């Protein structure tokens, strides 16, 4: 399973810090860019909702409970469908992969 591409039907969420949420409430695209000040960063961390076998509301609740990030009340989770992301990004880049690579507990 580790290292395999996620199914297109799966959903991922990425935490968006308050400072990267536009005033219209949407996440700025830069939140999905690799950090230039972190040379070893080769991917973005996300949470896989389908790894939590429950309804969507409960899945998000579990993500909040187990997140290692400093979640802020005015932060947001951006939810994305794997297949839709691959399709849209492929217009520009065909090397994007969304893979299963869980962090150690």
């Amino acid at each position, binding site marked *: 399973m580790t290292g395999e591409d996620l199914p297109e039907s799966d959903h991922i969420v990425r935490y968006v*810090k*308050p*400072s*990267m*949420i*536009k*005033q*219209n409430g949407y996440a*700025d*695209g*830069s939140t999905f860019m690799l*950090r*230039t*000040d972190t040379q070893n960063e080769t991917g973005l961390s996300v949470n896989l909702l389908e790894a939590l076998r429950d309804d969507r509301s409960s899945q998000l609740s579990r993500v909040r409970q187990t997140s290692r990030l*400093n979640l*802020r009340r005015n932060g947001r989770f951006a939810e994305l469908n794997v297949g839709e992301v691959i399709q849209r990004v492929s*217009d*520009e880049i065909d090397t994007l992969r969304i893979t299963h690579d869980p962090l150690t507990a």
Partner: protein
Amino acid sequence: MNQGRAESGVASKLGNLHLAFKENKPNVQGDGDFRIESGPFPAHIAWRNFDNKQSEAGKFEFQTTGKYLSWSSSRLASVQTERSDLRQYESRLAYLRKEAAYEDRVINTISEKDFRHFVESQPHLLKGDLVLVDNGNLRAIWENNQGAQIGLQFLGGSSVQFVVFVHRSTGQQITRVTGRDTLIGLLQIIRALDVESLLFK
């Protein structure tokens, strides 16, 4: 000067330019500089006083008429109106600064300086959105309901990293143009991409 219309050796009236300064002395006092303010409107030269109180700022406009250069000056009121756009961002900047502190980081000083200069130098600039990138740089975004967007990350040193999403023709997918340029070079790119209406009134 008017864009692309400066001609060497013909501005004979420039010899009297010092009289304009003398006659309109209240408009040009203290430390400051002349800046060429460009945009979709005829470029003009404006005097900007370094004093943030703007108590002695003035504005000169130069226009070419045939072979001659004429100028007019206006006093503080118009300059203050042009510089008021930055006030629209002050509360947002304060919010980003507060959020950055929670994240144990700060807004890069040189990025903020460039952002402020960009807003101040473009009096017809529409108000955009503002976020703080992970590296501490400010990023401003202008967008419309059709998906067109201009994103500018202020890198400092008068450089910006830009991302432009633009429709090439009705119904076609959006084209993305990215790059890095100076603030002045950026405006030329904006014109070339015909997306000025996203930025300017």
